[in-house]
Structures are given as structure tokens and as C-alpha cells.
């Protein structure tokens, strides 16, 4: 197993293995609540909290969790933190809690969180697990705010409820409706693929062997060590 540095653990989830944009995990909340920046940010931070809390707890308790029932234990731990987040949001920010509705509770089945527990937190020391959770959670929030920002600017002509274009702007209402979510993420992914292809061509033209550091969407089931070693072989 190739050892990763703490910086790698922290930064990996932010962009190169971004849960939404690269790994395509946790799509349900990423599309459902991102019709404005405020909701995206709230959803991102709630998920961030749940991910950090459960990574910490799973990593702390990994010695006492029997292998056969580990998935159920992870889900229970995650569900506990989601309940905490749900009740806190309802008490502190009732308006946002109402806007997010059922999707706060649905953080439980966000495959990104379970994936991080299975692939990382259950086999690494506490500090590393926390770094990884912070990086992945921040990457998730970043992707959500990118989506929410695009949709709010185009769909309502504002950013964080501040009008941008003046009264003559005709908003693209479709962007804040469900199809807008699919289209925004689709266009974003096309753009990323285009950028990646151009980068690869430039590397090829330069005669440098292409680094495999941007693996196309690593599968959820693939363990981290496998991923790390495959990358090590290719480089």
C-alpha cells in the first residue's frame, strides 16, 4: 500500500477526487437542493458535519466493530449524526430547514459518506480520517456551491439573494427547476471532460508520459489502496 502524506489526504477530496464532479457520488442532494447558493451552502455544511463526525467516530471505534456487521454500524453512526444535524438546523435555522425539507434526512443514504467510512476511516488513524473527511466534505460543499451559484445567477439573476443584473434581466426560470439541475451538472461535466482532454493532448505533444493522476471516476467499491497502487504503477 502506498503511503499518502497528510496534505494529500486533505487536498485529494477537494478537487482531484471531488465526490460530485469526479466520482459522481451523492448526486441526489447535489442536484435537488442547489437551486440557490444559500440552500447549497447549508446542505454542504450539514453534510460536512455528518461526514466529519462519523469519520471521527468510525475511526475511533474501528477496533470494536466486527467486520460482518460493519456496514450496519456505519449506517447507524451516520444516522445518529444526521439526526443531530436535523434537530440543530430545525432549532437554529427553521427557514433553511424548511427549504431543504426531506433532503436533510436523506444525508443518511448519501453514498459518499458511507464510501468514505468503508474506504478510508475504517482503516486509518483518527487524524488522517479527520483530514480526509474535512477535504472530502469541503470538496462536496465546493461542488454544491458551484452548482447552486450557476443556477441562482442564471435562474434568478442574483447571488446569495443579492440582485446582480438589474430589473431588465429576464431570468431563465428553467434553471431553478429540476431540469436545470441535470443540465447544469451535465454542462459542467462536459466542460471538465473537454479541459481534461485538452490537457492530455498538450502533455502528449510535449512528449511527457501522461500522468494518470486524474483517473476517470474511480468506482466506489475500489478500495483506496487499490486506487493508490494503480496510480503508482501508471506514473
Amino acid at each position, binding site marked *: 500500500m502506498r503511503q499518502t502524506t497528510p496534505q494529500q489526504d486533505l487536498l485529494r477530496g477537494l478537487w482531484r477526487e471531488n465526490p460530485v464532479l469526479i466520482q459522481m457520488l451523492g448526486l441526489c442532494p447535489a*442536484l*435537488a437542493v442547489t437551486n440557490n447558493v444559500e440552500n447549497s451552502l447549508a446542505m454542504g455544511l450539514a453534510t460536512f458535519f455528518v461526514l466529519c463526525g462519523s469519520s471521527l467516530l468510525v475511526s475511533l471505534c474501528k477496533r470494536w466493530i466486527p467486520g460482518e456487521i460493519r456496514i450496519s454500524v456505519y449506517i447507524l453512526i451516520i*444516522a445518529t449524526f444526521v*439526526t443531530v444535524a436535523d434537530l440543530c438546523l430545525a432549532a437554529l435555522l427553521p427557514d433553511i430547514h424548511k427549504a431543504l425539507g*426531506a433532503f436533510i*434526512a436523506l444525508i443518511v443514504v448519501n453514498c459518499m459518506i458511507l464510501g468514505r467510512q468503508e474506504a478510508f476511516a475504517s482503516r486509518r488513524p483518527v487524524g488522517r480520517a479527520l483530514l480526509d473527511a474535512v477535504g472530502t466534505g469541503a470538496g462536496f460543499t465546493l461542488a454544491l456551491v458551484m452548482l447552486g451559484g450557476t443556477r441562482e445567477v442564471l435562474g434568478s439573476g442574483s447571488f446569495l439573494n443579492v440582485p446582480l443584473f438589474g430589473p431588465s434581466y429576464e431570468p431563465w426560470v428553467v434553471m431553478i427547476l429540476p*431540469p436545470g439541475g*441535470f443540465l447544469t451538472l*451535465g454542462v459542467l461535466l462536459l466542460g471538465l471532460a473537454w479541459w481534461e*482532454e485538452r490537457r492530455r493532448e498538450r502533455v502528449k505533444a510535449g512528449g511527457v508520459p501522461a500522468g494518470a493522476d486524474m483517473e476517470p471516476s474511480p468506482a466506489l467499491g475500489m478500495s483506496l489502496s487499490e486506487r493508490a497502487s494503480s496510480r503508482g504503477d501508471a506514473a
Partner: protein
Amino acid sequence: MSELVWIFLSALVVNNFTLALFLGLCPFMGVSSRVETALRMGAANIFVLVVTSLSVSFLNAFVLVKAPYLRIIAFIVVIASLVQVVETVIKKVSPVLFRELGIYLPLITTNCAILGLAIFQTNRGYGFFEGLAFAVGAGLGLTLALVLMASIREETELADVPSIARGMGLVLIIAGSLSLGFMGFAGLLSSS
């Protein structure tokens, strides 16, 4: 009676779980490349949704009245064990069906459509029969979306698309167009 029909229709097309509420996107993206597998996945989903709806009605009526804060935990535990039980029973009773459903049955546990159904049913205060209509409608809606997507993807496999669109980008754009089409049903409920 008419109310049940509206709940059913609303879950089927107007508030389609996949295309309007973004629930159950993982199977929608993952297993929608063949129509046949899409149908099987849909069938497994309908089945689990109905069983979930029944047990959620029971939980809401008898258990969660005393401890509402346990809602999320109770639902996820019940769903996970339910899927396990259903899997064992099907394996025993009908090995053929079990082989047909294959890996999809256990995967359904982490499908947000199932937990989503449980939570929506509770939030809207649906009773036993309303919940049942909701579950069947939602399941058929999921199947409809899956099959539509799979048929389109079977066609695009042979199409000459730009190389950057050979991944999820194209699937998402198609899903966006489908979702746009389903928005046409939005007038169905308000006009009545």
C-alpha cells in the same frame, strides 16, 4: 377514492421521484444502459417500496408516536433489515426471481428513493392506503424513468457523439431533457 388516484398520478408523473425530485439517481445513472436490466431494477424497486410503505405506516401509527426524534434511525434500520428479510424469503421461495433480481436487491438499501418515500409519507401524514398508492405510483414512476433512459441510452451507444460526451455528461443532458418533458405534466394536477 379519487384522492388515492391523485396521489398515485402525482407520484407517477408530476412529482416523478427520479426526474423531478432527484431521488434514486444512483440506479438511474448506474443500471440504465439496458432496457431489460432497467425493468428488473424497477420491479425490485416497486416491491421494496410497497413493503417499506406498509412498515412505515405501522411504525408511524404505533412506535414513533412516543419517540419522534428516532425517526431517521428507525426508518433506516427497518429498511435495511427489511431488504435483508425480503432477500432471504425470495431466495427460499422463488430462486428464479432471486436470480433475476440479482445484485439489485441488496443495493436498494442505499437507494435514497426508499428512505425518501418513508420520509415524504410521514411528512404528508399519509395513512395506510394513501401510503400504498403513493408507493406504487412512485415505484412505477421510477421504472418509467429508468426504462425511458435505458431505451435512449441503447440508441446513443451507436451514435457518433463527441469524445468529451462519452461519459456521464451526455447521460445528464439526456436526463435534463427527459425532466423538461415531464414538467409538461405539471398542469395535470392544478387544472383539476
